[in-house]
């Protein structure tokens, strides 16, 4: 309900703490002053009126006793003279003596034109009565001699003095009110210093901190005790906590960065070590193998006559194993090389890639019946050299494991994957037991004995490495003696789930 009044000062939404405190202060002092003035005013009014009535009564009694003789001797002139003495009192405007029959015995008028007032009926048993009007007071007093009522004296007085006094009173009250409001305004800075200033300073500090994010800043502490100093202290404590957390965070971040650098350096060193290792492997491991094979060969050639057939067979075994280890070393080295190679993607025609591989594999196809089913494959973005390694390994595997078939069927196709084609290479060869599928891509892991199918166990590991370097996935499905299918992508992202692809893979193949 005070809002409209507030609005006179300022927009309440923008009002600051200082403004609010000042207004509150002024309102409180104004209310207190108005109440106090009203109380004094009321009391003063009541006592002043009582004093007037008492004054009139005294004058009426004096006049009554002085006019008894005039009434007894019926001498109105003497009564008029007595009444004329009332002129010393400037507030008495009229006075008159009425006989019990209602006739006027004598009169006094302050001014010639003063009208005789209407006399109210006086209660008969009373010796005195008075009436107070808005600006007139009337008093009636009975004139009694030896128990006989001779007449009644009426005095009418104006209340100008009272009213003037009230006006002065109101004026003084107004001046005091304005003065006190001004004083409240003047006192406002003291409030500001005592209550508002610390809050304003706190608000400024908070604003500054949220702007600069400098949590080392602090609000100025207060000497006094109380809610404001508690507020300031809590605020500072909060800042200290933020600052320490900030520092911890920074430290953790720095630590993390340091660790990343450390790990990167370690990784670089490990890579270097690996390279040095593979370098010395290629030098130092191949040489003894070659020498084992060489001297075995020379032994078989030059001492042929002295060797039993068993001895010759054992020597041949030594040579075979040396050759095999030579292949292992070579394959491992090539896998390491491929692993370190950077993927350089460009649009690659997979069909072209495959026909190249087919002619590379021609010697292995000699004397065999092979049915190639090569679908029309899409162009994709991949490293052509690395993709060739994938297809080369998978196709030569398909050839190898299907060599016991009268007609080997080797299929290359693709399925629509979620975001890229899923390629597959399928054969009708020896297949493998799906229970061991998890070992398929491990280095040196083989699912066939080497007297069934020769190999080093590095090919599929290399294939997987290449696919993974492209961000792609590879998985296989097979059945013993019914063939194997290898699915793979060269694109980052999740390929179609195995379960989903299983059935479409077969369907697509049948359509093709």
């Amino acid at each position, binding site marked *: 309900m005070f809002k409209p009044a507030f609005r006179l000062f300022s927009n309440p939404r923008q009002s600051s703490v200082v403004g609010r405190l000042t207004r509150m202060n002024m309102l409180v002092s104004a209310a207190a002053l108005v109440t106090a003035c009203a109380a004094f005013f009321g009391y003063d009014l009541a006592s002043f009126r009582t004093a007037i009535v008492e004054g009139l009564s005294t004058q009426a009694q004096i006049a009554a006793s002085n006019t008894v003789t005039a009434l007894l001797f019926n001498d109105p002139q003497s009564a008029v003279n007595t009444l004329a003495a009332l002129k010393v009192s400037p507030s008495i405007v009229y006075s008159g003596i009425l006989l019990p029959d209602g006739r006027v015995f004598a009169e006094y008028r302050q001014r010639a034109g003063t009208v005789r007032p209407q006399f109210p009926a006086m209660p008969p048993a009373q010796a005195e009565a008075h009436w107070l009007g808005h600006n007139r007071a009337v008093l009636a007093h009975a004139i009694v001699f030896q128990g006989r009522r001779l007449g009644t004296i009426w005095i009418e007085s104006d209340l100008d003095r009272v009213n003037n006094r009230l006006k002065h009173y109101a004026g003084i009250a107004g001046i005091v009110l304005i003065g006190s409001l001004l004083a409240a305004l003047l006192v406002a800075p003291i409030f500001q210093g005592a209550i508002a200033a610390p809050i304003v300073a706190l608000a400024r500090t908070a604003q500054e901190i949220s702007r600069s994010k400098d949590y080392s800043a602090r609000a100025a502490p207060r000497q006094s005790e109380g809610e404001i100093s508690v507020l300031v202290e809590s605020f500072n404590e909060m800042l200290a906590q933020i600052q320490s957390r900030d520092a911890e965070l920074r430290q953790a971040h720095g630590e993390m960065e340091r660790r990343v650098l450390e790990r990167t350096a370690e990784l670089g060193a490990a890579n270097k070590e690996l390279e040095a290792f593979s370098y010395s492997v290629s*030098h*130092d491991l191949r040489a003894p*193998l070659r*020498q084992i094979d*060489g001297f075995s*060969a*020379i032994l078989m050639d030059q001492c042929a006559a002295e060797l039993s057939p068993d001895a010759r067979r054992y020597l041949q075994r030594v040579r075979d194993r040396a*050759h095999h280890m030579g292949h292992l070393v070579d394959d491992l080295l090539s896998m390491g090389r491929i692993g370190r190679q950077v993927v350089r993607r460009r649009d690659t025609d997979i069909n072209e890639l495959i026909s190249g591989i087919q002619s590379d594999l021609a010697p292995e196809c000699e004397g065999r019946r092979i049915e190639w089913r090569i679908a029309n494959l899409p162009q994709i973005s991949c490293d052509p050299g690395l993709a060739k390694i994938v297809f080369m390994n998978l196709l030569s595997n398909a050839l190898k494991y299907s060599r016991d078939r009268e007609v080997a069927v080797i299929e290359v196709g693709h399925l629509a994957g979620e975001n890229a084609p899923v390629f597959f290479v399928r054969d009708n060869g020896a297949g493998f037991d799906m229970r061991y599928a998890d070992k398929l891509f491990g280095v040196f892991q083989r699912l066939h004995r080497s007297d069934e199918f020769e190999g080093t166990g590095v090919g599929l590991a290399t294939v997987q490495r290449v696919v993974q370097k492209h961000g792609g996935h590879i998985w296989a499905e097979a059945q013993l003696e019914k063939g194997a299918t290898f699915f793979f992508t060269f694109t980052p992202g999740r390929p179609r789930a195995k379960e989903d692809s299983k059935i479409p893979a077969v369907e697509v193949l049948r359509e093709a």
Partner: protein
Amino acid sequence: MKPDPVELLYVEDDDADLELTMIALERGRLLNAIHVARDGVEALDFLFCRGAHSGRSFSVPKLVLLDLKLPKIDGIQVLRAIRQDPRTAVLPVVVLTSSREQKDVIETYQLGVNSYIQKPVDFTKFQETVRQLGFYWLVVNEPPPAAAAHQE
């Protein structure tokens, strides 16, 4: 009386490899006028008639067969020294080594090697390789005339 001027300088530190290579050369009937150096320093001393070979009268062989992994001075440094000297700058050098590390292949070709051959693990293939390269460089190929080297 001195033997025929050396036709083949073979730089090899490994005993077993040396023996196998010699057998392969022998079987290819390419054993005449061969000198073996067992490390890089010895190879350069022989070529440039220094140290133990200071008494030798300078002559350029038809071919240097160079292993890369050698004690003291490695094959690449030997190759560089050969190419830097005007007398041997065009001398045919064939690297015959165990590895075919890309950086070795690239570096030796950049230094001007004439051929880079990885020793096969299979002795049958090794023997054939040595026979072929010996036959090619010592018999088939026309070496640069001595005058060509001096004109550099």
